[in-house]
């Protein structure tokens, strides 16, 4: 071989800001709005970023055992589906749209919400439930999936995520 060989570069696995943290606030309970936070948390953890998720208001459905497998998607009010808006209001349309979206998510090799949360916890992610939401909904730790580390106040979350970059979803 007559090629000119250079000394080999080593990938910079330790690059990036030391001690980088990411805080993600999940405030929505729709199936389509659950995934952005989960995908980004998973990606951040895979890059070695300390990641905290805070589930609040409708986002509580993502971690509530009785609901987390049953998040729904509706085309109503969502022009990006490019369907006539009246169609979204027909009986059964939410179930049809939800089934279709779940199939597309599965085909992309992406897990359902409960499995995704387990993967995030296994990757070292921290899941926190909002105290006010728990009080409003009369739920306690027993109602939430096992991966949730605790029910904490907004102030506690702000304290835990000191210096973090923040995403509100």
């Amino acid at each position, binding site marked *: 071989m007559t090629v000119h060989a250079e000394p080999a570069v080593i990938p910079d696995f330790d690059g990036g800001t030391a001690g980088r943290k990411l805080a993600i606030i999940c405030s929505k309970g729709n199936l389509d709005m659950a995934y952005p936070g989960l995908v980004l948390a998973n990606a951040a953890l895979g890059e070695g970023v300390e990641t905290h998720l805070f589930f609040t208001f409708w986002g509580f459905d993502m971690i509530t055992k009785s609901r987390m497998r049953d998040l729904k998607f509706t085309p109503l009010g969502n022009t990006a589906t490019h369907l006539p808006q009246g169609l979204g209001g027909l009986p059964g349309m939410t179930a049809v749209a939800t089934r279709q979206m779940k199939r597309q998510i599965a085909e*992309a090799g992406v897990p359902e919400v409960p499995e995704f949360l387990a993967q995030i916890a296994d990757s070292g992610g921290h899941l926190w439930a909002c105290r006010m939401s728990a009080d409003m909904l009369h739920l306690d730790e027993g109602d939430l999936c096992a991966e949730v580390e605790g029910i904490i106040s907004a102030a506690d979350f702000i304290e835990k995520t000191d210096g973090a970059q923040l995403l509100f979803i």
Partner: protein
Amino acid sequence: MKVATIAGRAVHVDDEGFLTVYGEWDEDLAETLAARIGIELTDAHWKALRFLRDDYRSQGETATLRRVSVVGGIPTRQLFTLFPKKPAKKMAYIAGLPKPRGCV
């Protein structure tokens, strides 16, 4: 595509240092690649690396962490212990494969 010298042999690499030719890798080279990023390979590491190699050959792309855990049967927690901080990229580097392109 550049040619670089690793462990005394010339291999093709991309700008970041990942090998780009599947057939230029072998297990001796993996030991050197691992050592360069501070990892000493054990049987547990090899199980993951061999899965990655075999899976790439059949799928044509590098397995994501989820695929290594679900299809390869190696728990996610263990992958983070074996290849700390950035397991997917570190595994791909040592296995002589491109970085995974999938999001999950």
